[in-house]
């Protein structure tokens, strides 16, 4: 097992710049986490509300380092056959058929059962061998020559048993296959786990990872994100919409709008040729930001006051 060297990850500042060139604006903390993960060869467990760019972070690193991104989406009932490896049963079946046909030739000259069995044992047993192994994401990540970004998405959705399965991979970068033995990673992959905190992740798993919590961004950071993602939006609109989204997050909503929703909203406002927020416009596009009917209704009644605060902020700011 050897480790790949990436000049792009030499310092925290370099990482920030690299991310920015791919349109991912991140806080200092995120860049530090990536830097440490790379230096210490540890996985990162990313937690935070949905839509703050947890998955996007792993994707951006794959782009930045130009390495393959191998993604494993977790769900309830995910087991090792889908995550680690599977045997190619069809081929194994064919192999036994072929073996049966060739058996006569192979055992030629052997007299008696004992001698036949002894002869049979001389052939290599390839029924369980790498040739019949179908790699699934985790094993695939171990097999990459030049390293890979392994993204284990929404690990909180998987079963508890699956977490234990991950432990060997996360601490030693190896997988044990009972029939073959231990498969070590050719190059240490960078591992990202994301979690939406629907349940507590076990301490054993947390202990093996760096823990990164990504909260909703600050106004300033979110404006930078919008500037990079939706360059067509003018400055006034950008400021107003970010302020508005931030005031929405203060409300007691079922699902607060995340960065991805802010971006979507900014794009739709640009498509509608808006130069600034107007009440009617906001009302008709609110469904881009809010995903529950009751949230939309709750916001609708307070729309005027929310808008007035966000526009007054513009004047003072």
């Amino acid at each position: 097992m050897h480790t790949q060297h990436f000049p792009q990850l030499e310092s925290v500042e370099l990482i920030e710049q690299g991310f920015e060139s791919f349109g991912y604006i991140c806080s200092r903390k995120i860049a530090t986490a990536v830097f440490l993960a790379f230096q210490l060869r540890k996985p990162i467990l990313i937690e935070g509300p949905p839509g703050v760019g947890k998955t996007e972070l792993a994707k951006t690193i794959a782009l930045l380092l130009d390495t393959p991104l191998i993604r494993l989406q977790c769900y309830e009932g995910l087991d090792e056959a889908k995550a680690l490896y599977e045997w190619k049963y069809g081929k194994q079946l064919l192999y036994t058929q072929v073996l049966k046909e060739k058996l006569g030739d192979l055992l030629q000259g052997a007299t008696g059962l004992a001698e036949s069995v002894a002869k049979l044992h001389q052939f290599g047993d390839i029924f369980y061998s790498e040739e019949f192994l179908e790699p699934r994401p985790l094993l695939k990540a171990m097999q990459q020559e030049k390293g890979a970004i392994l993204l284990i998405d929404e690990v909180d959705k998987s079963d508890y048993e699956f977490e234990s399965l991950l432990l060997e991979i996360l601490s030693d970068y190896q997988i044990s296959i009972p029939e073959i033995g231990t498969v070590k990673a050719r190059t240490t992959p960078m591992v990202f786990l994301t979690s939406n905190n629907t349940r507590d992740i076990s301490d054993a798993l947390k202990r093996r990872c760096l823990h990164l919590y990504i909260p909703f961004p600050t106004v300033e950071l979110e404006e930078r994100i919008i500037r990079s993602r939706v360059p067509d939006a003018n400055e006034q609109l950008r400021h107003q919409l970010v302020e508005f989204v931030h005031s929405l997050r203060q409300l007691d909503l079922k699902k607060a709008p995340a960065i991805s929703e802010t971006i979507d909203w900014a794009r739709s406002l640009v498509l509608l040729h808006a130069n600034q927020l107007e009440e009617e416009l906001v009302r008709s596009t609110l469904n881009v930001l809010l995903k529950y009917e009751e949230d939309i209704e709750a916001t609708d009644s307070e729309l005027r006051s929310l808008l007035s605060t966000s526009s007054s902020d513009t004047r003072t700011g």
Partner: protein
Amino acid sequence: MQSNLVDFIQVLRSHDIRVSPAETLDAVGVTTTLGYSDRNLLRDGLAMTLAKTPTEEVIFLDCFDRFFQQDLADFSSSEMPSDQDENKDLDSTGNTAAPTEDFSDSQLSALELASENNPSLESLLQTPLMQNLLNNNRSELTLAINAAAQRVDLQKIQMFTQKGQFTRRILDAMGEEQVRNAVIELERAESPALPVLQRYRDILRQQVRDYVEREYLLHAEGKTQQFMDDILSKTRLNNIEHIYLHKVHELIRKMAKKLASRHSHKRKRLKRGQLNMAKTLRKGIPNDGVMFNTFWRQVKKEKPQILAVCDVSGSVAAYSKFLLLFLYSLQDILPKVRSFAFSSHLGEVSTYFDDYPVEKAIELVNWKYGGATDYGNSLMDFSKLALDDINSNTTVIILGDARNNNGDPKLEILQSIFQRARQVIWLNPESRRAWGSGDSEMLRYQSACHFSAECNNLKQLERIVDQLLKSTR
């Protein structure tokens, strides 16, 4: 600095953050990679290895600020803005600003003048302590306080009542006694240098007091909290004062949550999964490779169901409040908990627990079901309400003292529950010796329980519920 990091981790541990040795090693790795030059960078990096939940992160940031603020002050005292605040007293006599410099010079000369005809004062002024004070040598002074604190084992401070004691001990270790004596002497002589020396003495005392306060917050606050938690969990439930009720509530919640997270993953559900090809092939070998039987990957899952019955009659009133509190927290966290309450008759209270906040729910339950005990009648009600739901996955918990006012205990109902359920558990707040005495039917009821135990403090409750959850796998 490495030992500093270990100290810091000790502090985190005392504030309820669990840090394993492996994480300590990671933290060392972080500090060597990041270095100590950028404080924020180091803070973020350490937070990632040491704090593993958002709540832990808040505690971590707080501890980090307290701990490293002071340590950095050792190295570069004048750059730290917070440091300057603390040393305002010193600054005013210090040599930083011109007008005060003259002032301090005149003070010095007053002292020197007084010391000319006073040999003990003169020798005092030559001590390193006075020299540091006079020359405003802050870093030297901090170091001296540090050393003195080490000598008197300040890190072992546990209770806030010890603060004064430790302050005095540190002052003594630094040789403040000499200063004190000199002040008394000057007082007697009514020397003009008196206020000057008094001032220096006060500055010193203030410094030490601040230092002790800081150390107390770092090392003891967490411990005190833990200490209180321990005491509370060992106190008999009916002795816990009303003012601690909310505190106990927190404790119970913590406990229930711990138990739930330890056991919740054992909830299982039966599911016909994928075809288990390997097994199907293997089992086909005797049939000449014909796959006669198919085998499936099965995920075994079963959901335990808990029915909790709580006595709320007058005889156990003090306990039932806590038992209900516990039930409430448990129902909050574990799925499929049904709660019942009774005294003369029994009814389901799960909906109260779902709909109302805890205080209100308990009050409602007590109001609706409180009264004289009739176990026979209540068991009948229970069998009517829930007997059909009891199966081999069900655990029935009964909380009560089994004092039936000499009525018919209706043991046969409990026996039929006993036969159907996976487990019947009886928790009795009375001590085992009192079971069966007077109108207690406990010994008879006990015969129809898989497990019965005395339960009158939180420690016992925790142990029992843990056992219970283990066996409901």
